[in-house]
């Protein structure tokens, strides 16, 4: 075995006998505090409830917008209606004279 192969083999075996690294006491303290955090931060209601409320609000807003648009369209039609009736009446009168 040449020098290079020996070096590669030795390097490949460099992790033999590796010991676990000791974790930092500060990390352990943080992990302990993490253990209590999820309970404090727990959602007040189950997640589906939040989604249902959000969907309800979205539906309400959509219905309001649609109602507003519909009202505006009808309002415009009402403004235009007298003029249309007058034109139709005058046309009728003109025809009647004849």
């Amino acid at each position, binding site marked *: 075995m040449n020098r*290079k192969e020996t*070096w*590669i083999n*030795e*390097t*490949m075996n*460099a*992790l*033999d*006998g*590796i*010991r*676990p*690294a*000791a*974790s*930092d006491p500060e*990390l*352990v303290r*943080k*992990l*302990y505090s*993490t*253990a*209590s*955090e*999820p*309970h404090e931060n727990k959602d007040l209601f189950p997640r589906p409830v939040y989604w249902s409320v959000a969907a309800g609000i979205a539906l309400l807003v959509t219905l309001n917008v649609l109602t507003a648009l519909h009202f505006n369209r009808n309002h415009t039609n009402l403004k235009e209606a007298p003029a249309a009736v007058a034109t139709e009446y005058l046309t009728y009168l003109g025809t009647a004279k004849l």
Partner: protein
Amino acid sequence: MGIAPELVKLREGDELAFRQLVDQHQNRVFNTALGLLQHHENAQDVTQEVFVEVFRSISKFRGDSTLSTWIYRITVQKALGHIRSGKRLKRSGTIFGLFGNESQLNIQTNQPFDHPGIQLENKERATILFKAIALLPLNQRTAFTLHKVEGLSQNEIAVIMSTSVSSVESHLVRARRNLRELLSDYYEQNEK
């Protein structure tokens, strides 16, 4: 088979049970993360993320595997996610892109990884080997690290990586072959 009393307590949110869980698993979680990430602070971050995830999703644990394996799996997923998102690069300021050809072991990290559990006489070579491991594809890197650093069997690695034993065997064979090639290149450039 009934649910273990410890698991029932964990699901009920018993803080003492969580503390015991931390005591039992924090070293393994930290060491697995450290081996995969090769970065002390990031390994600590991942360890915290793992336990937050464990606490939040303990109710989803169905007992198909042991609790230990489940935690290991979360650890590997979190660590790989960390590697993928490049958090390590941002923190250490390492720029792999500068060195173009990744098939050559010529990366010059600002802070070479020095695992505290390596025997003194192996320190220098282990640093080079860790650099080479960091260049492996993630599956090979994971399998090799779990095997060599954590000392896990191929069966255990297969369960953690959610794959077959033959697949793990294949990852390990390819990892060794790739590492030998990388080390050979390195030797040609530096040790000759």
